């Protein structure tokens, strides 16, 4: 396994600039998620690393070997980069065993290696003789992963690997894939548009927007300190209110909030789980409940403040208000503020 380093990668299709000087370092043995809305260029980035598409500028290095630069490009089959596309793309004419062993030289396609890979991918041994269409979506995904891992590649690329699975299966499939990758000690680059997936699975998340990488951070750092309000709202819902920062306190319609920012006008970010609903008398800020979405253990409450500002709160369903009820609001913990001038 080896680290992946991209520097200054650019790519256009016709007049459209898909990738604009992208830099990214994927540390050895880590799982990095590239997160962005569809059309932000993340899949093109993956295909450049795989060697299916040439970049126009910049370099790609696997370990200390440059595989892609303006002058030269190593062919895809010589890069040693495993690829797990959407929906797995298993070879439909081959059974599971032949799919998994496809990338190994003839002499190394042994029963023991197959058994190792099935175990690694947490697949029961009796699926080996089945056809891809007889497997569930999650199983197909794990066979595709085992197939990609079989030749012991330096890096594994996963392109929206869970997008075809239904919601319930996604979470468990994601965790299984992460376990498998950890076990194999693989360096992995995962492309997704689902922030929950990126935050829960990756060691490092790179947020992409319109062909650029806007922030690279660990999931916790990314959630706590998004680089701008757009990133903040993209990574988990957030209420953004304007206010004035004075001496570590932001004065907003949600009250006076603790903040670490310079004095001046600012946009203040409040996460739904920071908003606590209390009795009217307990808080200085009041709001009217407009909509209640009940999720069993959790409840998401939409409110309007007196001045009409919409606010979202998320909390335990032990305290579920009624629609139309007037409640008090408290904001817990420090908030993040962005100076207004930066916008």
């Amino acid at each position, binding site marked *: 396994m080896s680290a992946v380093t991209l520097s200054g990668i650019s790519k*256009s*299709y*016709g007049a459209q600039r898909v990738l604009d000087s992208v830099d990214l370092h994927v540390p050895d043995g880590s799982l990095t998620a590239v997160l962005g809305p569809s059309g932000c260029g993340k899949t093109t980035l993956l*295909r450049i690393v*795989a*060697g*299916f598409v*040439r970049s*126009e*500028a910049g370099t790609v290095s696997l370990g200390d070997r440059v595989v892609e630069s*303006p002058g030269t490009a190593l*062919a*895809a*089959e*010589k*890069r*040693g*980069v*495993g*690829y797990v*596309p*959407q929906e797995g*793309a298993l*070879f*439909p*004419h081959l059974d599971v065993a032949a799919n998994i062993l*496809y*990338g190994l030289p003839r002499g190394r396609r042994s029963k023991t290696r197959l058994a190792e890979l099935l175990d690694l991918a947490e697949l029961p041994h009796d699926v080996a003789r089945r056809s891809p269409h007889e497997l569930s979506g999650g199983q197909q995904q794990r066979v595709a992963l085992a*197939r*990609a891992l*079989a*030749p012991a*590649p330096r890096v594994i*690329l996963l392109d929206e690997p869970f997008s075809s699975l239904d919601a319930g299966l996604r979470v468990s499939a994601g965790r299984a894939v992460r376990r498998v990758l950890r076990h194999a000690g693989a360096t992995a680059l995962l492309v997704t548009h689902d922030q929950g997936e990126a935050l829960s699975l990756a060691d490092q998340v790179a947020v992409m927007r319109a062909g650029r990488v806007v922030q690279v951070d660990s999931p916790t750092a990314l959630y706590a300190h998004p680089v701008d309000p757009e990133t903040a709202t993209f990574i988990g819902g957030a209420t953004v209110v304007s206010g004035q920062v004075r001496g570590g306190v932001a004065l907003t319609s949600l009250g006076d909030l603790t903040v670490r920012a310079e004095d001046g006008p600012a946009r203040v970010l409040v996460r739904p789980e920071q908003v606590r609903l209390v009795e009217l008398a307990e808080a200085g800020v009041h709001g009217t409940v407009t909509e209640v979405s009940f999720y069993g253990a959790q409840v998401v409450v939409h409110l309007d403040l007196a001045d009409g500002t919409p606010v979202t709160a998320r909390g335990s369903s032990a305290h579920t208000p009624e629609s139309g009820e007037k409640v008090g609001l408290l904001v817990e913990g420090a908030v993040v503020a962005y100076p207004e001038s930066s916008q």
Partner: protein
Amino acid sequence: MTTIRVHPRLSPALLAGIVVVGLTLIPLGYVVWETATMGPGQLHDLLWRPRVGELLGNTLKLLVTVVALTVVLGVAGAILVVRTNLGAPMLWHALLSAPLAVPAFVNSYGWVSLTSQVQSYWGAVLVVSLSYFPLVYLPVVASLATLDAAPEEVARSLGRGRARAFAGAALPRLLPGILGGALLVGLHVLAEFGALQLLGYPTFTTAIYGQYRSAFASNAGTVLSGVLVTLCILLLLVELLARGRRRYDRVGRSAGRPPEPFRLGAWRPVAWAALLGLTALSLGVPGYSLVHWLLVGSSTEFPIGDLSTALVSTLSLAAAGAVLTVLMALPLAWLAVRRRTTVSTALERAGYIANALPGIVVALALITVSIRVVPSLYQTLPVLLLAYAILFLPRALVSVRSSLEQAPPVLEDVSRSLGQSAWATLRRVTLPLVAPGIGAGAALVFLAISTELTATLLLSPIGTTTLATEFWSNSSSVRYGAAAPYALLLVLAAIPATVMLSLHARPGRASAAEIPRRMELAA
């Protein structure tokens, strides 16, 4: 810094595609060029003749009646088999598809050799309709079998009776299948030569043949060809207009449920009698006739030597023609699936033009062009094979195209990422995936060539006899007994393709969207 190519390169595939389309456009180009350069005076004289008016009347009269009759027979048969409690649906399905295995010229041989009364307008209508109604029946069965019950149930919950609910909510969705089938019947009627010649019913095809026999490649023949091709193209346009831009796809994605069958009640024996009668006419008569002449013929002569010569040359011609046709279809299908541009789409469409070209027009054009351009090629194997390839390119194209769609490029990406070279990827992934479809396309072309009459008759090299030409020379000189063994072999050769089509459209399976395209493969 590398630059991105915006304009498509002239790749080998594109070049091959252009060559293929160039070859397939020879017959149409010839007819257009010849009529355009003829001079208005001569064209007018050749066109405004009572003879042309008579042929046009005959052809249109036959076309309209046969299309109407086949639509009635095909739709009624399909509804009885799929939507009622008729019983034994698979048996009836087989019996109603089976007439496709009897080539139309063999069917009319069966009738003519028993009674000369069919040598009339109504006789022609009867025999040709009995040969072609499965072309409507099969696509309608396929659409009926995949029809979801929900819209009809909604119509009934809104107060419609069963029959009105079917007419209002189901019938419109069968329209594409019916129109597609009717178009095929129409094109077959316009192109039919052997059956109508035996039935003594003069249309454009028989007149073109007569011109060729008496005056070889004459301007009169060319003008008749031009009128015939125009009729075919008009028919395609009529179908296109009738189909319109309406869409009948189901909304939503659930698989759907089949509706409850209509209960026939006291009408059930009537339905059985009607279907039995239809089967007796479409299969019983030619079957009886064939057996009769086989028994009579075998007592006098059973030329095993001639038979095997004809069989061997038929099989070799069919094999060579199938290989050539598939090779010509490959670049067009590749471009259409993998290199989608306006140019590649136009090239693929052009490959389907032959659907509107009767065999006699293709044959006549190739004869004239080969004599003028490369006289040494006249009446040689390459010209005959080219005619087959032009005529049957659409069938090969449909199969090869859908097989290429079975091999999405992402599978090749995965293979490359697993360390396989382009060649190993082709051998281990692409070929295994596309081979079955290409094989099926080749098989369909092979079977179509082995029962092809018109082009073979006009183009086969001197001394080459095939099943169709031997059958023809015997039956057209009223040696019915001698023709019988060849007729039997022709029927046997047509059975596999019929079984393929019949299974593809069986009640209860298949995707309706696929059927109209598949039906282009039909006899």
